């Protein structure tokens, strides 16, 4: 039995509504089940509830930022892959340690889904969809 995107629940954490909704929409269009949270403090209980497979989180957020969230998730269940995402071109030296990938905003939907598919252990180019080849901009 092969796993599909719909078997995975992705939690998208970002304080910026537009970015969060767009990323969430990108993943749901790939077939993933998605959840949303606007900062680390909201996201952590959801993760702790145990239904989340992958976390995609912005780095800089008021309250608990992405790096703190990454650490908190590592403390709870280090098997949950965390993808960091930021509008800045890079994040702090130690910040990304423990993250499976880094997405720089803005990114192509194909690139985002490829990173998440990779994090889920799915093949990067799912059949039946035209997306998946990131166009560099």
């Amino acid at each position, binding site marked *: 039995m092969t796993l599909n995107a719909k078997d995975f629940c992705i939690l998208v954490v970002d304080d910026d509504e537009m970015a969060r909704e767009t990323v969430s929409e990108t993943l749901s269009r790939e077939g993933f089940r998605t959840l949303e949270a606007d900062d680390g403090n909201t996201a952590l209980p959801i993760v702790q509830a145990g239904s989340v497979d992958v976390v995609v989180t912005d780095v800089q957020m008021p309250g608990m930022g992405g790096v703190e969230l990454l650490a908190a998730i590592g403390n709870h269940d280090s098997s949950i892959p965390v993808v960091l995402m930021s509008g800045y071109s890079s994040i702090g030296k130690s910040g990304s340690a423990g993250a499976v990938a880094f997405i720089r*905003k803005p990114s192509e939907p194909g690139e985002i889904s490829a990173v998440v598919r990779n994090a889920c252990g799915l093949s990067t180019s799912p059949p039946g969809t035209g997306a998946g080849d990131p166009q560099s901009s």
Partner: protein
Amino acid sequence: MRRFRGPSLLLRDLKIGEKIQLFAALSLFSFVLLTGIAVLQINAVGREVVLLGGRDIPLIKLAGRVARSHARQEVLLQHAMDAGEGMRNDPAARRSFAAARDEFLELGRLTSQELQTHTSVTLDERGASDDVLGASSSEVDYSLRGVERWYAAYSFLAERIFNLLLLGKQSEAGEVLQSPKGVADRRGLSRALHRFLAEVDQFSKSSAERAERAEGSALLGMLIVSALMVGLSVIYALFLGRSITRPIERLRNVSVELGRGNLAARMTLDSRVTSSEGDGHEPHFRDELTILAHSFNRMAEGLLKTQQELQGSQARLLQAGKLVQASKLAAVGELAGGVAHELNNPLQGVIGNARFIEQDIQKPTALPPELEQLPKYVQRVVQSAERCRDIVQGLLTFSRQSGTDKARLDLTQTVRAALDLVATKVRHQNTELRLELSPDVMCMANSTQVQQVVINLVINAAHALGKGGAITVRTESLSGHAIVRVSDTGPGIPDDVQGRIFEPFFTTKKIGEGTGLGLSVSYGIAVDHGGRLVVESAPGEGTTFVLTLPGADSDTGPGETHQLPGGQVSET
């Protein structure tokens, strides 16, 4: 540069007053010397003249009187002889004889007396002024004594004749008169008188010559001494003049040099340092011109220093001008970091949603149910693009505008626009941004500059907090002024630092993190607006910066004194 010279500098070291006093003393001394010599010379001449008048002339007169007396006596003697013939019978002849004899004797007595007086006077004088009169006076004395002697002999002869005549011995009297002795006595007196007259004449002539010579030599001596004194005075006056005018001339030349801009021009100090009290702190000179030259040098030194300082500050100002621009660009750069992030979120919306639209409309099986989402995607793209536009515009407005024109503007709106640019940065360091903005706070100000001040203050507050804490931005109208307060809950500013925070280039941040211009530029903007920027802070109690601007509805202009919030009185 000080030249040290030998003892010839003694005169140089004198003060001008002393030089003039010396000149006056020299002149006075010359005058006294000249007068002294003149007095001595006149004295010498005068003595000759005194001798001439006081001794020679009486001597000549005496000789004359003696000669006249003698001549008269000869006549009287002849009368007596003649009367003696008929004296026995003729009472008239007796009377005539007696008269002649009496007159003779009276003349003889007077003449002898006079001669004696003169002999003693001459002797006295000779003792006193032998050196002047010399040998010739003794000859006069000698001849005078000869006259006296011969006169005594003549008188004795006459007396004998008179006695013989009285006894009636006329013939014997005639014999005595004609005797060789009698003739010799009479001739001797005549000769002595002649000799005496000749001697006196000779002596008075030589006296006059001596007086003339003395006068001549006195004149010559006085001329020589005068010439010497005049020459000496002229030389000293020249020296004095040069010693005064030369340094003044040099001073003038050096001043001209200085005037031309050669600030390195200096006076050469000729005079030696007479004393250096306090070991070389300040050299002391005696003469005024050297003191003047020294002061002049110090002035030139001051000018040079001032010029260098001016050049330095000019360079610093130029640098500061660049740095002010740089500080603005640094602020833009700092903002840009936050703004880029701010921009990237809507860009994510644009790219993502545009791709969704693209994918949906390219599906061969695209049917109305599948295209249901399209309007939502399009709306999101437009929304995101608009957000991007606003952000970019805000940044451009801030970075591009550089005018200083002031206009009536809504302070609260201006502050809000500034906060839009920094809010992200503040939020991202988990600092709470509290806004207490009053509506309708109108002011006369330059929007960009006010924004720059607010951005500076908020960024400074954020830096002070580091992480967490809260920044409160408050706008209000207060007694005709428009006020912005930016407070933070940070550590506060120590007292010693508070006094310096508005200084240009003063920064407590690490090198490369701050230009040290933010607050000084902000302060300048506040003052330029006729307002004020003050800080209220205490360690541990946070910091509040109060920007006061003239209200748009008040006529409060710069230069008036109003009590401003923050306990400060506006000065400009």
